[in-house]
């Protein structure tokens, strides 16, 4: 228990939130990079379709996402069948840390993919072609050409994905189950405090969230200036 301004606060939702956000960001960078690269470079007429798909979580109420996840990840569903086939003991993802991460990956997807895409679009095709003529393989092309030119995009993607996951509510509410130390996140804890008329605790947690969110955005904008990449 923490005592902040004389108010007793259970810090475990804070740790859970940070753990979910960190894992989600990691996963999003891993799957977001190839997705964003593909979308940034493709000439296909399907591009708009996939762009719209990636942007969906921006406009969809999180409860819609949460509701579908609740239904699709239930222990009698296809996802669970598949996981059991892979050797998972019961295949259930709802009410677990992993389930929350999966929900958050969907929920924060555009916040990672879009900045990466914008950054990749800025990488001149001539540089990519030049590297290829010098027989650079995909990996060295990425590390030596794309990465240094897209640092800003990476930082923005990582911080926004992280911060957006921290602020997640609807999805967690639907698939979390409010299990202490596992799926109870800060936003749910605040909701609970308001529900139980414990306004002092709600205030303290809300102020922590506010300061945290503002600092994150400050860092993003600060880094954006520092890492401004001049091309051409």
């Amino acid at each position, binding site marked *: 228990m923490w005592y902040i301004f004389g108010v007793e606060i259970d810090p475990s939702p804070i740790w859970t939130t940070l753990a979910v956000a960190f894992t989600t960001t990691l996963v999003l960078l891993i799957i977001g990079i190839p997705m964003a690269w593909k979308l940034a470079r493709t000439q296909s007429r399907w591009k708009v379709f996939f762009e719209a798909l990636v942007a969906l979580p921006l406009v969809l109420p999180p409860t819609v996402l949460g509701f579908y996840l*609740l*239904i699709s*990840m*239930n*222990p*009698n*569903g296809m996802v669970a069948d598949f996981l059991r086939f892979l050797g998972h003991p*019961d295949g*259930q993802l*709802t*009410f677990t840390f992993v389930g929350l991460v999966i929900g958050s990956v969907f929920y924060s997807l555009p916040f990672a993919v879009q900045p990466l895409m914008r950054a990749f679009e800025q990488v001149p095709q001539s540089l990519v072609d030049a590297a290829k003529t010098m027989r650079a393989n995909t990996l060295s092309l990425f590390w030596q050409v794309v990465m240094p030119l897209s640092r800003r995009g990476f930082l923005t993607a990582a911080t926004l994905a992280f911060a957006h996951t921290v602020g997640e509510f609807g999805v967690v*509410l*639907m698939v979390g*189950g*409010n*299990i202490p130390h596992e799926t109870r996140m800060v936003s*749910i804890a605040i*909701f*609970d405090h*308001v*529900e*139980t*008329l414990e306004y002092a605790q709600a205030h303290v947690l809300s102020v922590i969230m506010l300061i945290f969110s503002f600092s994150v955005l400050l860092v993003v904008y600060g880094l954006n200036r520092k890492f401004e990449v001049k091309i051409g």
Partner: protein
Amino acid sequence: MTFKSLLAISLIVLAPLSVLADELKIAVAANFLKTMETLSKNFEQQTGHTIKVSGGPTGKLYAQIENGAPFDIFFSADQKSTKKLEDDGKIKTGSRFIYAQGRLSLWMPNVPAGVEAADVLKKGDFKHIALANPKAAPYGVAAEQTLEKLGLLETLRPKFVMGENIGQTYQFVATGNAQMGFVAHSYTVDPKHVNKGSFWLVPLSYHSPLDQDVVVLKKAENSKTAQAFIDYVRSAEGKQIIEASGYTVPN
């Protein structure tokens, strides 16, 4: 007859109605929302008044009312928030009373009728049991008290998943994510909701009463319509609707 004159006539005929017809804004705890819809629809039909119903978790509604939400009547799921509103002078004096007592029910979609619920719980042959968060919802407290009474609270605690309200708790069970759950009997009484397995209506002696208060808010202090609706809720017809919805009405 031209359209214009028809319009004029209907305006003249309907005008007195629109003067008499009043509008009520009612805040209602999520567990009572369905019942409220029936009550308000009947009242509307009988009186010509309009009722706008806003459902939500009691704590949220309380916070909204404290901060100036324009409700006339508040049907709460507890007595804590209504007593606070009373202490703060936000209600019509003397308007607070218990309109319904909730009944707790354990819904077991995978257990056929006729099997003892206590045996199922003792066996513990399930992964998750859903209940409303006892911190946020009186039904959650009642569920914990019931398990305590059965001597199973600490054994089953690791299997708990908690909904933020009784509706969400129901949803966890209905979607198969939890194998059973403590819900409001207002859900299990409705065969549309509980179409699988069986339920156990928890005896009242297992938990402290789930008293649900209603208050007329200060804003509607002098509203005849608000009073008329309260009278309707207390009438024999109102009582019958509430009881048919799975609640007990205290005398």
